[in-house]
């Protein structure tokens, strides 16, 4: 068996013919293995879903209890139609996993989205060996070198003292980024209440329930007077700032926590005044270090800037090729 025969792209997503399952399918399928809860990877409407308990919890929060025909939490190595399958922490968001697939001595590790930087709101990435390592390349260009996230939070807190009359609106995605940014703010010693958009509440509650303390969180609702938000931190999905919801805050100072904020033009295009370079993904160094560490026989590169990472592999005498998967949002949730 070749790795290609074990796992290859189909319009629905990465498919394993021997096991008859898809990994992170973008359309409803009979059997899906899901790496993590971000909406472009975890969709509702599959027949059977296998994912970590936390990913299943997140999907239930987002889509309701009946999001799939049946669900299964993998314990250790699971046989699916004779294919050996195991899940390993990816460090991307809470519950995120890499999926290792093995048959007849050939193994492929689909890392999904992952990161190596320490993060108290996600499990620690586990290096897993396989014949093939499938890596993401969201930040797969040598210009991406994520700074220390604590220093980025320092910028936010400095700005808060400098502009105490302005509401500091921090754009964060609801799953992962929100909780990580809150945790970083707490670790920086800021313990005043944080105001959150309604879309963040359920997942913040869930993280709390999983033992990740986020401190006092209050709803950024319309009952409060606009002036109450002066000098406060308000967290919301970035789309909310453009919507009417964003209009009630006093002289809002738009911040955005994302790896994309490394590039100034990105910040400017989005009207971001204070970019916070905080990412849930590997930067260039983490990507290349991980490939070196795992030393697979072949690297497949998917969503993001495949070309550059494939080029790096070529320069370093590593077999690599781009894996063209469709349907994942290139730059949205991260």
């Amino acid at each position, binding site marked *: 068996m070749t790795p290609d025969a074990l796992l290859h792209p189909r319009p629905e997503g990465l498919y394993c013919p021997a096991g008859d399952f898809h990994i992170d399918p973008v359309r409803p399928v009979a059997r899906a293995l899901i790496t993590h809860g971000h909406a472009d990877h975890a969709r509702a409407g599959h027949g059977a879903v296998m994912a970590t308990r936390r990913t299943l919890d997140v999907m239930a929060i987002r889509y309701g209890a009946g999001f799939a025909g049946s669900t299964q939490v993998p314990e250790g190595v699971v046989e699916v139609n004779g294919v050996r399958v195991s899940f390993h922490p990816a460090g991307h968001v809470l519950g995120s996993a890499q999926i290792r697939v093995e048959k007849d001595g050939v193994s492929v590790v689909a890392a999904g989205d992952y990161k190596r930087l320490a993060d108290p709101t996600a499990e620690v990435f586990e290096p897993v060996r396989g014949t093939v390592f499938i890596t993401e390349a969201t930040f797969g*260009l040598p210009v991406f070198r994520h700074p220390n996230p604590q220093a980025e939070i320092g910028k936010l807190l400095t700005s808060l003292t400098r502009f105490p009359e302005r509401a500091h609106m921090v754009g964060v995605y609801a799953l992962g980024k929100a909780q990580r940014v809150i945790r970083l703010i707490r670790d920086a010693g800021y313990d005043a209440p944080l105001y959150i958009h309604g879309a963040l509440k359920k997942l913040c509650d869930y993280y709390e329930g999983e033992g990740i303390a986020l401190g006092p969180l209050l709803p950024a609702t319309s009952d409060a007077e606009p002036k109450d938000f002066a000098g406060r931190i308000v967290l919301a999905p970035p789309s909310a*700032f453009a919507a009417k*919801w964003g209009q009630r805050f006093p002289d*809002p100072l*738009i911040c955005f926590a994302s790896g994309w904020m490394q590039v*100034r033009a990105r910040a400017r*295009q989005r009207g971001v*005044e204070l970019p916070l370079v905080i990412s849930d993904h590997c930067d260039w160094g983490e990507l290349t270090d991980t490939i070196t560490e795992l030393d697979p026989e072949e690297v497949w590169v998917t969503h993001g800037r495949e070309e550059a990472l494939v080029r790096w592999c070529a320069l370093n005498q590593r077999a690599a090729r781009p894996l063209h998967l469709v349907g994942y949002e290139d730059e949205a949730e991260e």
Partner: protein
Amino acid sequence: MKRFAALLERLALTPSRNGKLRLLVDYFGQTPDPDRGLGLAAITRDLDLRTVKPALLRELVSERIDAELFALSYDYVGDLAETIALIWEPLGPPLDPALSDVVAQLNGAGRAGAGAEMARLLDGLGTSERYALVKLATGGLRVGVSARLAKQALADFGGFYVAEIEELWHGLQPPYRQVFAWAEGRADKPVQAALAPFRPVMLASALDEAVLAKLEPGDFLAEWKWDGIRVQATAEGTERRLYSRTGDDISGAFPDVIAHMAFEGALDGELLVRRASDGQIGAFADLQQRLNRKTVSKAMMARFPAFIRAYDLLEAGGENLRPLPFAERRARLVPFMTGLPAERFDVSPLIDFAHWEELAALRAAPPDPVIEGVMLKRRDSTYVPGRPKGPWFKWKRDPHVIDAVLMYAQRGHGKRSSFYSDYTFGVWNGEGQLVPVGKAYFGFTDEELRQIDKFVRDNTVERFGPVRSVRAEPEFGLVLEVAFEGLNRSKRHKSGVAMRFPRISRLRWDKPSAEADRLETLEAMLPPA
């Protein structure tokens, strides 16, 4: 260097003027000499720094990283300095140099050593500092802060008037230690040392026609308001300088004027150009060809020779005339000008009038298309910097007004960041299509802003990033009454016209979109080609 880099980073993304001022004031307060003064000079472009060519930087980078990886990265980032700053892997020991160290090292390195020095610095600095370094070294520091705004920040920091800074500026050298000492109350105000310094200008306020009846025509002198730029031509000893009204030295762009400044004194006047083709005074668009340049070609000078239409004399032969009444300064101006070549210097003529009605009639039918109204100056007014209320008025011709249809809306910044507040509007062409003719982002009230915002959200057709196109059809659309000061021909705009100073004067919810103005109407307003 760290503080300077952090300042640049924030300034580049801070849209509001007040926000920028505050960041600058903070920087001055937190940064010791000489760095704060060097940072200020870098922003006002007064910093003397040996620059390096982008080609040298590309060469340095090519020694470090694969050309294809660099090309992919540059393509993605879009800015060479930023790509280099981000991609450079710092291999050396971390450095935390003062801005003054960096300036000294770059200036001391010499042409041959510049590359090695850059590499050494890039190797030791963090990402933000690398960006600041590359921007500094390539001379491309664009952070959306004018020299004037930086001087305003310095004035805010010291608690004095910006006019005081402007007046001193040309006698000062970076790092401006005396100024900071003065600002912090540790020293007296520095004494003007330079020859031919800038004198902060006196500005007129817009005339409220309601107050006209209360003014006595005999108290005022009237002259035409020319559509050029306000300048100050100052000559002292061997020094000759041409300043913009904010004190920027624009001598380099106007050697044809400088060459003829054979006088001792300071003239206040309008800078205009003549069209070589027909000898007429050029419209503002013609003058614009010669603005914002460091140098100017002979061909351009021949096509649009510049001249000064003088209206005031501030200094003559070392004598400060500013405390004299305007009528007396005018009387001194006329003989002062007699020795100067008439094609380069003339006196702005006074308008003879007895009643306001008479002046209003003249204003409505001026003798030259480059006139945009009249100026009224009290005969007894002394020359004081700033915009005092009462002595001087500008009485502009009524603005042009058209009805246009809203086509695109873009989200604003700062306070307006959640509102669609920048509007592109168009008029109907011969084929019954809307063609964009301009963009406006003010002139409406907060309440009107909310109404337009709602209209945009409810009638979005397409989205392009922060821009939305809105429904604009003959049967449906929002008509905006747009006021503007003038119209120029434009090759850049599809419609062939470009408006000066457009703003929304009224929302015409009542007006059917099909009845908005047509392009022919605008074309008829164009100055003759």
